[in-house]
């Protein structure tokens, strides 16, 4: 599973680097957005990734601020779980990937979801 992910990662990076999801038609659309017209917590993340790969942090934040915030968290998780970080810093792992942090992540997603559709 991890190996499959590692194989897919460069392909995805290449695609997201070379094509702009904002203008090119062949990137997937959000079914939630298509049905309701509202934005889901993930809307804009493909454009945000494209912007980030082109080092345009401001654009990325505008497209999807949560994704920009989530990326370091994702890297932290990968480091803790697969690169031995969790063994050296078990308390760090417990803090960021414990039971309550899981709840916090879900709450944050929910808040962002509601928030971005209101404001």
């Amino acid at each position, binding site marked *: *599973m991890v190996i*499959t*992910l590692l194989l*897919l990662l460069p*392909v*995805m990076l290449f*695609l997201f680097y070379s*094509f702009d999801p904002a203008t090119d*038609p*062949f*990137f*997937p*659309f*959000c*079914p*939630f957005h298509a049905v309701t017209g509202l934005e*889901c*917590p*993930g*809307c804009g*993340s*493909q454009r945000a*990734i494209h912007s980030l790969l082109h080092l345009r942090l401001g654009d990325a934040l505008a497209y999807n601020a949560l*994704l920009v915030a*989530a990326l370091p*968290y*994702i890297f932290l*998780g*990968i480091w*803790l*779980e697969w690169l031995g970080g*969790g063994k050296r810093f078990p308390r760090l*792992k417990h803090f960021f*990937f*414990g*039971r309550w*942090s*899981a*709840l916090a*992540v*879900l709450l944050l*997603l929910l808040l962002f979801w509601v928030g971005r559709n209101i404001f």
Partner: protein
Amino acid sequence: MNRYFYIDKEGKQRGTFSPEELRREQINKETLVWTQGMEQWKRAAEVEELSLLFSGSAPAQQPQPAYGQAQPLTGQESAAPVQMPKSWLVESILVTILPFMFCSSFFSLLGIIAIVYAAQVESFFNRGDYAAAVEASRAAGKWTRIAMWIAIGWVLLIIIGIILFFVFVGSIAGLGELLDI
């Protein structure tokens, strides 16, 4: 100060207790105990930290049949309670976040199921219910894997879709050239 599990007279696993608290439990030198870092269950008398409990006025209790009853547990699950079963929290959280990046947020529901199970692992384990913790861990692992493979499949679909798009565009262009000629 380590916290210990022990096997009671009924052969049930109980825990966790600090050595101080163990003093108040009905244990004796023959009681099987286990704590983090131990390979196997040991007789309490063999554990350095606990030997203090018996050094003074060791209550002259009958040696319990703990050995015989605990054996199936240690034998069947081998070194079962050596560690908390894998909680899958990191994986399940990641697998919940990732679908949002590829416009497949509905797959996040699978990740949330995995998170719910993953959160139970630690609760059960802390309560001393090892079997339930293992069960929750297995369920969390199962849902995490399901969610992950679906996400991988989704990403593959995107890649295939993009390739097909270019093949299609390419063939249209090729057709156009053919017609021009």
